[in-house]
Structure formats: structure tokens, C-alpha cells
């Protein structure tokens, strides 16, 4: 393998993959959400554009592309323009640290299915995904209007509050796996033979609820479905800038689903990885298992959205401060104790 | 099915007690088609309403209806007749008070007695121009604030004036 290919082409290819993979999932999500919500509600959803409406996201993208980009005169130009970029940037950059499978041997070259592996990969991903809060604040502030500002502030409080249970539950995983490296965590799940989701169900449930709140999705979608009364932080955005917010939200969802799968459900491992009788499952490439699991969690996102009413803001804050944080603290101490004793 | 047009003793009861309490105020009372209608003197409206609500138990004001008498009043008759539709629950007695009021005169507002009169009086003002004294904010309710004229008056044309406000 020539240095050119190994040192240039392959990294460039990986970068392209890191951009295309979440974007591709976003495209799938747009279609999936509308179809699944429609079917749950007893109607059909988009089924005209392309086979079963598969080309609907393309139609949406084209529509948003051609819409006029309106910006108010009093809006802060720089912040207004940069906030969609920030939100998108934080979601995409975190994907650099998300591993998609075990390294593949191609001849003498080991192709790693990630761009970077860091001993503190978990922390980095959490930190990067928190940058999106800045995008929200800037978007609300720069719009120079009461309602987006209030929506943005609410979103900030929501995201900041729910970061705490996320951090605590993620730490329990790190404790058990003795590592913050995502690849290591998956390998430990393989060697211990049980997925951490079954080992620590409380951590998983608290993490999942907090993650749904982090991504501003139903039933915690107050900042954006404020449009029932006051429109959310992306009111004043139109056209491609709005598309950025829209896609960034889905990309964030995919990121969170990936995290859940890696931390709690064995990443690219097939079910029951250490049971000899089921070793035929290993014939399916790890990436496929990974995709199946991610698709399940994305479907769960949509399912929850179609079913539950929306949380009011005070109930939302009460939930996290009265229930989730104490629960995750107790859970954390319990796991630490178990880890110390065993 | 109960005959709702029958004359029931409870109706007469309400009319008699009202006439007994306010002998000069009650100009006439009649029961037609099972409904009690009492004609009142304008000045006693507030007192009568309070009496009916507090002592006779007419706890609901269903509606305030204004009639424009321009075609039938001729000379000497007042322009508008304002009807107050009262209801006593439980007991199921209906009472209709009729008060005549001229074009430039004002009536006492029923809002201190019945809170549901608020918008009904605004509607009467908007559509007919009847003023209510003591109303906490008498202004138009259907028509735009700058509108001139009172649409439900008989002399207001059906198609509007000059093609609109």
C-alpha cells in the first residue's frame, strides 16, 4: 500500500464517510419519521415521491434550498449566520470519535473504522456535543426577537440540566469497563459476555431519557414545539439555515443513538457474543449489527414522539432535578461500591 | 313530553314577588307560551337585577337582546328595547325583563350583578349603540374599533355603507 493511499486517500475517504454517514442517516430519518408517525396515526404519510416516498427527503431538501434566506435588519449578522454552523459542526465533529467496528485487515494494512481513537473518547464526544448549546443561544439571541430568545433560554436550561444525568450514567459504564475509550468499552462487553444495558438497566434508562431531552425531542421538545404558543429558537431562520438546524437535530439523534448502542448494547457485537452455539452470528459483519441497533433506537425516538404529549417546562425541570439526578447519583454510588468490592 | 308552553305556578310566583317589591318599576307582566315577560322602568333596572339574583335565586343571565323599534315606535316611543333573559337554576324558571331605552340614553350596566353580562353588553353597544353605565370597558367587540355606525340597527343597510368600514 503506497503512502499516498495510506496517508492521504484513506483519511480523506474517512472524512468523507464521517460526513456522509450521518447525513445519510439524516436522510433516512426524515423519511422514517414521517412515515412511521403517519402509520402510527392511522394514515399513510409521504408515499408519492419515489417508491414508498423514499425520495421525500430529496424533495424537502430541494424545497429548502430554493427558499429565500431572510434575515432581519436588526439581527446580529455574524451570530445569526454562525449558529446553524455551530450546531451542525458539533454534531458532525463528534462522529470522528465514534467507532463503527473492529479494524479490518486489507492485505498488510489495518483499516480502522474510525478517524480517531482516544483514551478519553467518551469525554470528548460529550464535550463536543455540548457545543451545540452555543448554537442555540446564539440563534435565539441573534434573532433579536422576544420569542426565539425565550425559546433558546429554555432550551439551554433543559440541555444543561440533563447533561448531569448523562454524565453520571456514562461514568458508571466507564467504571465497569475501566476505560473511557469507546473501542475498549465495546471490547470489554465482548469479553465479559453481557451487554452493559442488561448489567446496569437503571443507567441505561436514565441515560436514554436524558439523551432524548438533550436532543430536544418529544416529549421534551418544548423549545421547538413552542410554536404552539411562542416559536422556538429557529423561528427567524428560513431556507438553508433552517435546513441546517433541522439536519443537525437528526445528526445529534444519530450520535446519541450511536452512543447508546456502544455504551450499553455492545456496539458492533452480535447478540450473545461469547456463547459458542450462536457463533454463526459472527458471520454477519459488525457494522450491520451496529446499524440494526441504531435503527431500533431511532425508531424508538419516533415511536415516543408519536405517542406522548409534550412536557411542560416546569414538569420537565422537576423531572430531572427531583428524579433523574438523585436516581443517577444513587446508581453511580451503587455501581462504584460494587466495583470496589468485586 | 312536558308542555313548555304551559303556564306554570312558579312563573306567576316570580312575577308576583317582583311586583310586590317594586310596584312602580313593573310596568306590565305576562306569561306567553310558558315564558314570563316583565316590562320594567329603566331607572329601576339595577335594583331589580340585584333583587332577582340575590333574593329570588335567578343566578344565570342567559343573554341580553336588543330590539330596534324604529319602525313601530313612531312618536313618543323609545328607540330600543333591551331584553334580559334570566334563568333560575335549579327551579328552571325563565324570566325575560324588557326595558325601553332611547337612542341617547344609557342603561345601568348589569356587570356588577352578573359577570356574564360583560361581553353581551359590549355586543349590544357595538351592534346597536346602546350605552351601559358602569361597564368596565365598554368598547366594540365584533367590528373594528374605528368603525362608524351600528350595524344591527334597522336603518343600517344590509350591504354596508360605501362598501365597508
Amino acid at each position: 500500500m503506497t503512502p499516498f493511499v495510506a496517508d492521504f486517500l484513506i483519511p480523506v475517504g474517512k472524512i468523507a464517510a464521517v460526513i456522509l454517514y450521518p447525513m445519510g442517516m439524516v436522510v433516512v430519518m426524515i423519511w422514517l419519521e414521517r412515515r412511521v408517525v403517519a402509520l402510527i396515526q392511522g394514515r399513510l404519510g409521504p408515499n408519492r415521491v419515489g417508491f414508498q416516498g423514499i425520495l421525500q427527503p430529496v424533495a424537502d431538501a430541494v424545497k429548502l434550498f430554493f427558499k429565500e434566506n431572510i434575515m432581519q435588519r436588526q439581527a446580529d449578522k455574524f451570530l445569526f449566520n454562525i449558529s446553524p454552523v455551530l450546531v451542525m459542526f458539533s454534531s458532525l465533529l463528534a462522529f470522528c470519535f465514534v467507532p463503527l467496528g473492529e479494524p479490518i485487515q486489507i492485505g498488510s494494512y489495518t483499516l480502522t473504522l474510525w478517524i480517531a481513537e482516544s483514551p478519553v473518547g467518551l469525554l470528548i464526544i460529550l464535550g463536543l456535543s455540548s457545543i451545540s448549546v452555543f448554537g442555540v443561544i446564539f440563534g435565539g439571541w441573534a434573532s433579536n426577537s422576544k420569542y426565539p430568545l425565550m425559546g433558546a433560554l429554555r432550551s439551554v436550561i433543559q440541555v444543561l440540566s440533563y447533561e448531569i444525568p448523562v454524565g453520571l450514567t456514562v461514568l458508571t459504564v466507564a467504571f465497569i469497563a475501566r476505560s473511557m475509550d469507546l473501542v475498549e468499552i465495546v471490547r470489554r462487553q465482548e469479553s465479559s459476555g453481557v451487554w452493559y444495558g442488561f448489567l446496569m438497566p437503571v443507567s441505561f434508562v436514565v441515560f436514554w431519557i436524558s439523551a432524548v431531552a438533550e436532543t430536544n425531542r418529544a416529549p421534551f421538545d418544548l423549545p421547538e414545539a413552542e410554536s404552539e404558543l411562542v416559536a422556538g429558537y429557529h423561528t427567524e431562520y428560513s431556507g438553508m439555515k433552517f435546513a441546517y438546524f433541522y439536519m443537525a437535530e437528526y445528526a445529534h439523534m444519530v450520535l446519541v443513538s450511536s452512543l447508546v448502542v456502544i455504551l450499553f448494547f455492545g456496539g458492533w457485537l452480535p447478540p450473545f457474543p461469547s456463547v459458542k452455539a450462536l457463533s454463526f452470528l459472527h458471520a454477519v459483519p459488525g457494522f450491520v449489527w451496529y446499524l440494526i441497533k441504531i435503527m431500533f433506537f431511532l425508531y424508538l425516538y419516533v415511536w415516543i414522539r408519536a405517542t406522548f404529549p409534550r412536557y411542560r417546562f416546569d414538569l420537565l425541570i422537576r423531572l430531572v432535578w427531583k428524579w433523574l439526578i438523585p436516581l443517577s447519583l444513587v446508581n453511580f454510588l451503587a455501581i462504584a461500591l460494587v466495583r470496589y468490592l468485586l | 313530553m312536558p308542555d313548555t308552553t304551559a303556564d306554570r305556578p312558579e312563573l306567576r310566583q316570580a312575577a308576583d314577588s317582583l311586583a310586590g317589591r317594586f310596584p312602580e318599576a313593573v310596568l306590565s307582566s305576562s306569561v306567553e307560551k310558558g315564558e314570563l315577560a316583565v316590562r320594567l322602568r329603566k331607572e329601576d333596572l339595577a335594583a331589580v337585577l340585584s333583587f332577582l339574583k340575590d333574593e329570588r335565586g335567578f343566578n344565570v343571565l342567559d343573554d341580553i337582546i336588543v330590539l330596534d323599534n324604529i319602525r313601530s315606535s313612531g312618536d313618543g316611543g323609545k328607540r330600543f328595547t333591551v331584553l334580559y333573559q334570566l334563568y333560575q337554576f335549579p327551579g328552571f324558571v325563565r324570566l325575560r325583563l324588557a326595558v325601553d331605552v332611547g337612542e341617547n340614553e344609557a342603561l345601568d350596566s348589569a356587570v356588577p350583578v352578573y359577570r356574564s353580562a360583560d361581553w353581551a353588553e359590549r355586543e349590544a353597544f357595538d351592534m346597536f349603540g346602546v350605552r351601559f353605565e358602569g361597564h368596565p370597558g365598554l368598547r366594540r367587540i365584533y367590528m373594528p374599533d374605528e368603525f362608524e355606525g351600528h350595524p344591527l340597527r334597522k336603518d343600517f343597510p344590509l350591504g354596508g355603507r360605501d362598501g365597508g368600514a
Partner: protein
Amino acid sequence: MALKEIDLNMGPQHPSTHGVLRLKLAVDNEVVLRVVPVIGYLHRGMEKLWESLTYVQVVPLTDRLDYLAALSNNLGYVLAVEKLAGIEVPRRARYIRVVLAELQRLASHLAAVGFMANDIGAMSVLLYGFEAREDVLDIFEEYCGARLTVHGIRIGGVPHDLDGALVARIRTVIDGIPKHLADIRTLLDENRIWKGRTVGVGVIGAGDAVDYGLTGPSLRASGVPWDIRKDIPYSSYDEFDFDVPLRTNGDVYDRYFVRVEEMYQSIRIVRQALDGLPAGEISARVPRVLKVPPGEVFHTIEAPKGVLGFYVKSDGTDKPERVKMKSPSFINLQSLEHMCKGNLFSDVVGILGSLDIVLGEIDK
């Protein structure tokens, strides 16, 4: 700390549409201080129009008042005119009117519950409710050709008869509605989020409710057992056996619950009416040109939204001298401020949905 009041406007156009209604809110840090509804965007001058039409011509226009429950409006007006003109409606026609009115109540409550849920975020409930409502509207379409502005009740009786096939179809539909209701109730009744958003929100006590003139399911949710169908029965309602659902807290949850319970009672009434449908004429003899003797009458019925009243004054001609409609939503909307005070402003939409108003009725 100084009071920081912000003025917010829920403009005439907004996603949770109950019609074109404008709400001017004053909020202090999320808590609602004042709510001033501004109406009149849908004012069509109905009452003025009615004065220039004959009694019979007015009936189809009443459909357009509460457009989600057109038959109730028809019934209210027609009963008032019949009382004034002394027209005796045959028993079979009265029973058919009851069937139609109760089916209309079902359709109206399904829409009300659906929109209430949708405003609070449970989107699927809206569609489940409308799925059930579609079945009822199909019946109306088969009966007289229209789904929404039905004009299915005329002066003197009803325009068409219910033949065996239609009766069977109605029975099938009302047998299927409890299943849809069960779906909706599974999603809402015991749901923590739903209860958190509706219990204790938008409370109005019984005394205040009566004082504000509140009527209909909203009043019965505050504990006041006032139902015109029981108190001053019309159109043979006293021949049927049904309960009037009552709740005591007067919050959004109770208003939702009362409506759901009323739907079950409506199904009960329709079954009884169909079982006991008497033979006979479906309409009294009404002259082509209906001249009503002079007089005035005020008649009320229990429409799905509340107590609907019609005041009709006749001067002896074939055109009414004055028709005034007492619209339940008009009066109910006045209590919105009382209900919203002290609540968070995210609740305003839910409270408005639980009041179940229709702007066509408010604005005439």
C-alpha cells in the same frame, strides 16, 4: 424585585386553531397575569342577514354558526320557530332528531378531545378521534348528502327518513366508537405527562363558573349538574334514560373526562332511540310560505358546546323581525381569563382547548 411584564400576542393565526381568535396576554416570567381575547375576525353579520330571509331560509345558515356541530344549531333554531308558530312535530320526527343530535354530539366531542390533545402534544389522539368522527360524518352524508354543514333538521320535522339500512349502519358505527375511545383513553387517561399538564390546570370553581355564565361540559366538570336535556327536556329527551357525567375539580382533565363520558351516554341515547323508533310521519304539515303569528320566544337546547339559545321575534310576516342567538362559546370564552390566571403560559393553549370554542359561533 420589580414586576417584569411582557406582552405576548397569540395572533389571529396560530397553529392551535380553534378559529381566528386573538389572545393578548400579559405574562410575568412565565406566569399569566391577564388574558384579553379579541374576537370579531369571523363576524359575518348573520343576525342582520336573517332579518331579510324567510324563516325557512334561515335554517341552512345556522349550520355555519358552530360548524363542528351543525345539526345542533339547526335544532335550536327550528325548535324556537316551532314553539312560536305552534307547530307540533310528530313523534317519529322527534326521535330521528334525537338520533341526529346525539350523533352530532359524538362528532363534536371527538373533534374537541382530539384538538385538546393535539395542542398539548399528543398528536396521534387527534387522528384517532378523527378516524371515529369520519364514520359519523359518513352517516350524515348518507342521510342528507352533507358532512359538515348538514341542514338535516327542518322546520316541522326532518327531511328524510331513516330506513332499515341506514339504521343498521348507524348501529354499526356506534358499536365501533367505544373501541376508538378505548384507544384514546389508553393514551391519555393515566398518562403521567397528560395528567401533569391537565390536573389542577385552569381550575374554575362551581360558584365562579355559574357566575361567568359557563355552560355545557365545562360547567359539569366543575360540579354543577345543569343539562337542559334533563332540566327542560325538548324533542322527547325525557323518554330516554341517560346519565349526566359530573366531575368536581373543574380543571382541564375533568373537562376532558366529562366529554369522553358524554360520548358513552350519547351512544346509549342513540341505541334507545333506534330501538324505540315509532312509526309515523317524519314532518308536520308546514305551509310553503310560513307565516308565524306575532310574538316572541326564547328557546334553549343543550348543544355539545353548552347551552345554545335562540330568541325569535315575529311580526306576523314570513320573515323574522329579530333573531338573536345566544352562543355558548361566546359566554364560555369570557371565563378564559379566570381560568388562566396564575397558570404558566404554556397552559393557555391547553385551557383554551378544554373550553372547546368555535369561532363561527362566537362571531356569528
